[in-house]
């Protein structure tokens, strides 16, 4: 039975008669959501517009534009954008390869299963894995030196940097892209490709003129989701860099721990800024997904 059918059956049932009592059934859920999700977040938003005495002010918001905080946001935005774009591009080619690449049947479940695991393999262990790989004594660092005579660290590479963190984030960003994009790629009808090739289109022309115009809202939407995903990440960066890299989640972490900004309300404003950025990314994602669904059915 489809969802629409269930909904139709259900609304035709007894629910209509006593909506006032039926609503009681979802009270526990909304109480929980209010107590542990909505009100706590709301309190931070309110706090962002208050001074230390509780009076209304915009001073906290304007203090966000001080150079040190602005640079924290900037580095976070850059890393999130770079890892989202990188994850989107690589993830797209990987998803395309397993959906329509003509590979043996075992490849696809292998890749999607691994993607499910890798997209959840974030946080502290991921940082350890990259330290063991690309750290100063890491295997790849050693192999490059031993086999190719390339001293990675002499080239200015550092794991505790923009490049290093982006490379590490890709480990959960690419699999996430594969998981989100696979259904969208499946929505591309086989007939479109066949029709295009009968009319003499090359593979490139097919992608540029048919598949991409249909796919781009899904692609862009998924990229925004990846962006939000990276923007809120704390543990990987913290375990990898300690507090040496000035990204906004690390700054907020230090602020919650020990009020490093010496201003509680500025801390709330910092959190508000994060909510606004991830919120915009998600609104964009939802909007684009609704657009994409008009085409890919």
């Amino acid at each position: 039975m489809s969802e629409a059918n269930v909904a139709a059956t259900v609304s035709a049932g007894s629910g209509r008669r006593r909506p006032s009592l039926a609503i009681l059934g979802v009270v526990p859920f909304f109480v929980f959501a209010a107590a542990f999700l909505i009100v706590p977040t709301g309190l931070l938003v309110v706090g962002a517009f208050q001074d230390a005495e509780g009076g209304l002010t915009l001073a906290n918001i304007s203090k966000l534009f001080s150079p040190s905080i602005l640079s924290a946001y900037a580095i976070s935005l850059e890393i999130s954008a770079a890892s989202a774009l990188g994850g989107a591009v690589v993830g797209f080619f990987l998803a395309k390869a397993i959906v329509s690449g003509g590979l043996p049947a075992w490849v696809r479940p292998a890749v999607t299963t691994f993607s499910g695991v890798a997209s959840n393999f974030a946080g502290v262990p991921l940082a350890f894995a990259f330290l063991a790989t690309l750290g100063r004594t890491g295997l790849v660092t050693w192999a490059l030196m031993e086999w190719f005579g390339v001293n990675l660290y002499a080239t200015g590479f550092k794991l505790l940097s923009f490049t290093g963190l982006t490379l590490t984030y890709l480990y959960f960003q690419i699999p996430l892209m594969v998981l989100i994009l696979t259904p969208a790629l499946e929505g591309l009808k086989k007939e479109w490709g066949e029709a295009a090739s009968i009319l003499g289109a090359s593979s490139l022309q097919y992608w540029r003129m048919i598949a991409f115009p249909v796919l781009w809202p899904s692609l862009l939407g998924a990229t925004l989701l990846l962006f939000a995903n990276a923007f809120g990440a704390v543990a990987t960066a913290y375990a990898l860099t300690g507090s040496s890299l000035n990204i906004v989640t690390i700054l907020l972490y230090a602020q919650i721990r020990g009020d490093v900004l010496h201003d509680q309300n500025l801390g709330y404003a910092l959190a508000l800024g994060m909510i606004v950025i991830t919120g915009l990314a998600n609104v964009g994602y939802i909007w684009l997904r609704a657009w994409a669904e008009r085409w890919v059915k």
Partner: protein
Amino acid sequence: MKRSTFGSWASVAIGAIYFLLPLLATFEFSLRMKRGVYSFEAYRIVLGDVHFQASFLYSVVLALATIIVGAIIVTPTAYWVRLKLPKLRPVVEFVTLLPLVVPAIVIVFGHLRMYNSQSLLPLTDSNFGTDVLITFGYVTLSLPYMYRSVDTALGAIDVATLTEAAESLGASRFQTLTRVIFPNIRAGLLSGAFLTFAIVIGEFTFASLLNRPAFGPYLQLVGANRAYEPAALAIIAFVVTWAALGLMQLVGAARRAVTK
């Protein structure tokens, strides 16, 4: 359309190298503790460490508590919304997706502001209170996954007919839920549960900021002070994640086989 599989193979091969190399490197590194020979020394030390055992056990219990509380909150709600309040479904769905919009660090910041020792409900005053708070915090984090698994499972069964059948046989609401609905969506619940387990077991931000002795902060502490043990721990964490999500896929496959 001319189809060459070379590009596809190249994509998969590059992906495989990027994804397998760090695992290989980590594993190799974890074996290097004794000079000159490969050994499982780092694993022996880690597994024998009482702090490892205590923090891992703590996180396992926390994960189980999260799964139970999450199931108790999500299942009746999803069931009730499908049965009686279909118009409310988008609202409930939106709320369950909020934890993907609001970063975890912001949620825990909010909890610390709302439930600190000067607040009306000072949960952070006692260890037990903080454990309750962190469990509820993890339930919010698992909400998107738990709700989606349960709601999809409910969509696959005929909720209205099952409920009517149960009621005409004299079952109470509670009995319908526990004896009819729960068993029918077991697979969905399990898949949500395994994903929740994978998320909670190594979670760092909540545990660290609420000062609870969980596995995530333990990992971070070892990482800051030791050389080879972190690599062994990373491998252990990867195996645990793999096991949890592998079981989830298995349950999902079993469910698909049943519905077919």
